[in-house]
């Protein structure tokens, strides 16, 4: 009985941020798939990763659905939370990334995932922006890089959308992503430079800054034929932000593990894929080495994160009230 109550209590505090795992794992899958194609490798790695990412997504979705059914108030509380709110689009982003991963394997599955992901993401973006506009109690310290998550998701839509034939819809989402990336980037720098430092456990979310230009670059390459000036601006912005954040590595590594560490994974996957796409477009070997190097680095980080998450779950350090 006590165990059942404890289990229900943990379900109540099952955080929406868990879905960031799916983003990282699916990003890693897509990255390895592209790398295998470029390197001409016949490893079953990408297929295995896809199965694992899809399984994790189904598992997390089931748990969160259970939370929605059994602890509706807790879900609503997360929806009203100024920071946790921004993690809800990780669900739709997970769907969009899975759609991209399934695109060449099962186009019909990809279409279903993409349709569900794009629709859900549009609804969540509208809801979150409404909250941003109409909530009165937002303060500067509530602003953190997690606010980029809804924005990044919009830029992800063209990656599978163009392949599925929805070019205009893809442009629509891409435009939203690029517009609000610039807006939020200004706000986040204002907050970082002139206000209180970002809360320690949210520090890894700074890596999300890499995601919009990286994802934007990959999406833009789907939408246009050639590598133009705007594409280069996007890629090199991503490269600079990656360099900037890697110079902060010792600070990040001193932090204690929390679920927000999964925020390292997807932006690095996005930058790795962007570098491989840059190689495809230019033929410059530097991008291939950089892309594959970032991918193996990300693989190491994901292994670490999986191990740390497993240990945290086993030791009961996740699904706690203060997360």
């Amino acid at each position, binding site marked *: 009985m006590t165990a059942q109550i404890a289990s229900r209590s943990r379900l109540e505090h099952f955080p929406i941020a868990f879905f960031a795992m799916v983003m990282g794992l699916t990003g890693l899958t897509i990255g390895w798939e592209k790398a295998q*194609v*470029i*390197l*001409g*490798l*016949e490893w079953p790695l990408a297929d295995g990763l896809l199965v694992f990412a899809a399984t994790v997504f189904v598992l997390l979705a089931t748990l969160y659905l259970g939370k929605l059914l059994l602890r509706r108030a807790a879900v609503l509380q997360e929806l009203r939370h100024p920071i946790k709110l921004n993690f809800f689009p990780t669900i739709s982003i997970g769907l969009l990334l899975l759609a*991209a991963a399934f*695109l*060449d394997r099962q*186009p019909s599955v*990809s279409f279903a995932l993409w349709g569900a992901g794009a629709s859900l993401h549009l609804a969540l973006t509208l809801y979150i922006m409404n909250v941003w506009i109409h909530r009165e109690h937002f303060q500067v310290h509530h602003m953190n890089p997690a606010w980029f998550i809804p924005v990044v998701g919009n830029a992800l839509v063209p*990656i*599978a959308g*163009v*392949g*599925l*034939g929805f070019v205009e819809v893809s442009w629509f989402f891409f435009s939203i992503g690029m517009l609000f990336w610039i807006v939020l980037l200004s706000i986040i720098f204002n907050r970082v430079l002139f206000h209180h430092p970002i809360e320690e456990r949210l520090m890894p979310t700074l890596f999300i800054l890499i995601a919009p230009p990286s994802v934007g670059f990959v999406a833009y*390459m*789907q939408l246009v*034929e*050639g*590598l133009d000036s705007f594409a280069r601006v996007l890629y090199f912005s991503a490269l600079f932000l990656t360099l900037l954040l890697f110079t902060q*590595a*010792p600070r990040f*590594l*001193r932090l204690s593990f929390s679920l927000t560490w999964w925020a390292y994974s997807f932006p690095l996957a996005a930058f790795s894929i962007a570098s491989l*796409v840059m*190689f*495809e*477009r*230019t*033929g410059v070997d530097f991008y*291939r*080495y950089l892309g*594959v*190097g*970032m*991918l*193996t*680095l990300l*693989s*190491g*980080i994901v292994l*670490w994160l999986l191990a740390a998450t497993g240990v945290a779950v086993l030791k009961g350090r996740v699904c706690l009230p203060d997360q």
Partner: protein
Amino acid sequence: MSMTNRPARSRTLFAIGYLLLTFCAGLLLVYRVDHGRGTDAEPARFPEPARPEIVEPMAKVTVPPAAASRKDGGSVASDPFGEMQRRLQRLEDEMASLRRQQTASFEREHALILEELTSIAKAHQDRLNRARALLRETKDNQARLDADLAFLQARYTEEGLRVSVSEAELEAGPAGGVSERIARLADVLAHNPRLRLSLRGRVDGAGSASGDPVALEAAARGLRDRLVAQGGEADRIELETLGEGRPNAGDSVSEGRARGVSVDVYFISP
């Protein structure tokens, strides 16, 4: 540096080392892939930029040739050169097939165009032959008309082309038929369907009994009857009476008196 910071510092250094190691593993992987393949590696390494999608619509997400061959069940990693050769052979076969199709299509088009041009040329030749025949016929008609008019001793007057038929010719011809000039006049009328004749009786000299207009009209009608009997159409022959005292423009008065009543035939062109 305190003792408590040492584990944290070690942990950070370990983490940095781990990250560097994983990054370098990627660089090493690329290096090994490149150098493990020898010279055959180059084509598979760099998929052509902005390659048009020819595999399938769903391959819009850039799928380099290596990926396409992977879907076909080929083994790029094990035999990239062989795979490239097979793809090249397939492409050459496709090009040869396309060339054959284009040649056949061109030949079909060529035959159609030739047939059409022949038809047009034949139509033109027919029209030309018809025009030539018409011209020849017109010339023949003109020559015959000229001969007929010469035989009929036609004269150009202010009132038009005129042929005079004398009283003697009106009365009888050889063997009880019509005179040769009247027969020739009927022949001209038959060969020129648009030609009309106007017959006008005329008194050759003053004091003649035939100065009666009734007699003049009877002479003209007599000529018309003869022409109709020779095959002329009555509605193309008009009768006109001028009355007495009008001299024959071409003959002298003495001749006219001597010859009595005659009929002037005027040619009316349409």
